[in-house]
């Protein structure tokens, strides 16, 4: 029985590490922010599940109190509640400040329905030069208008 539990624990840990590795490789290999966000979800979901399952098995194996098991389950639930919100906010913010994908979208309904408003709402009250607007050269006439800070006082 002990061997079975230990073996299952090892399998879960290995699976968790594998999915975390896949997520990390994805973050490094993907060409743009959207792909990286997608790949990073692997780490937050199945990798965490497997690690928590291994932790639960370990707690059972060493005879820890049931509180430890409950804490691990709550940990997973907490990540499930908070991670998608951060991911969604990052993705939407990246889209709205005008970061374009490395490969053009096959279909872009968001732009179709919200038009240019999808980009400009956020950039309107922020200085443009602070943002790295990929693939979008600054128009020549705007460049001349930028006054260096503290230059004419």
């Amino acid at each position, binding site marked *: 029985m002990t061997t079975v539990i230990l073996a299952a624990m090892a399998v879960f840990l290995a699976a968790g590490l*594998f*999915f975390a590795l*896949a*997520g990390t*490789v*994805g973050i490094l*290999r*993907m*060409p743009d922010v*959207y*792909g990286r*966000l*997608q*790949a990073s*979800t*692997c780490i*937050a*979901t*199945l990798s965490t*599940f497997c690690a928590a399952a291994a932790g639960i098995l370990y707690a059972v194996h060493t005879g820890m*109190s*049931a*509180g430890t098991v*409950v*804490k691990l389950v*709550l940990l997973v*639930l907490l990540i*499930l*509640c908070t*991670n*998608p*919100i951060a*991911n*969604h906010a990052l*993705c*939407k913010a990246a*889209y709205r400040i005008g970061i374009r*994908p490395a*490969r053009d*979208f*096959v*279909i*872009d*309904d*968001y*732009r179709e*329905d919200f038009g240019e408003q999808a980009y400009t709402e956020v950039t309107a009250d922020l200085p443009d030069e602070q943002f790295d607007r990929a693939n979008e050269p600054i128009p020549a006439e705007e460049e001349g208008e930028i006054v260096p800070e503290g230059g004419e006082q």
Partner: protein
Amino acid sequence: MNKKISAWISTFVFCYLFWMLLVWSAEPRELVLGVLVSAGAALFAGRFLIHSRAFYLFHPVRLILLAVYVGVIFLWEVIKANIAMVKLVFSPKLSYRAGIIRIPGSDDIRSEYGLAMVSNSITLTPGTITLNAAADEEGHNYYYVHWIDVETTDRNRAGEMIKGRMERWIGRIWK
């Protein structure tokens, strides 16, 4: 009942349950401290957490459905999506076709909680991220989903592929 008070009670019960599970002891000191902390937290957080129908989830059938959804249906979808993502990440050429697609939501799900749960479930499955959930003039819901590997540009079929099963289950929990 007054809306504010019911929101407060609902949040208080939730916080106290959370506190008990985390502390995992029945000492009087912990119990009293839990009441104080939960009451304070509910006072501040109640109006953010509960907007309508405060006691909707305190219902055995819905709680069991929620547990089944998170533990079985959602887990299975996540495992499938994870394996697809691993295949994509380790493929030598890294060829994918990304896109943002508008998929129609079910008309059964109207509440904020249901919409948020569908959106978050979509975001949590690797390969799809919800950018926005919006409703048109007639009250139909739409989700704007960034899909890493667009298999079909037909919106109804894409919706079925992305969230079909998950949405049907969430429709049984939230209306």
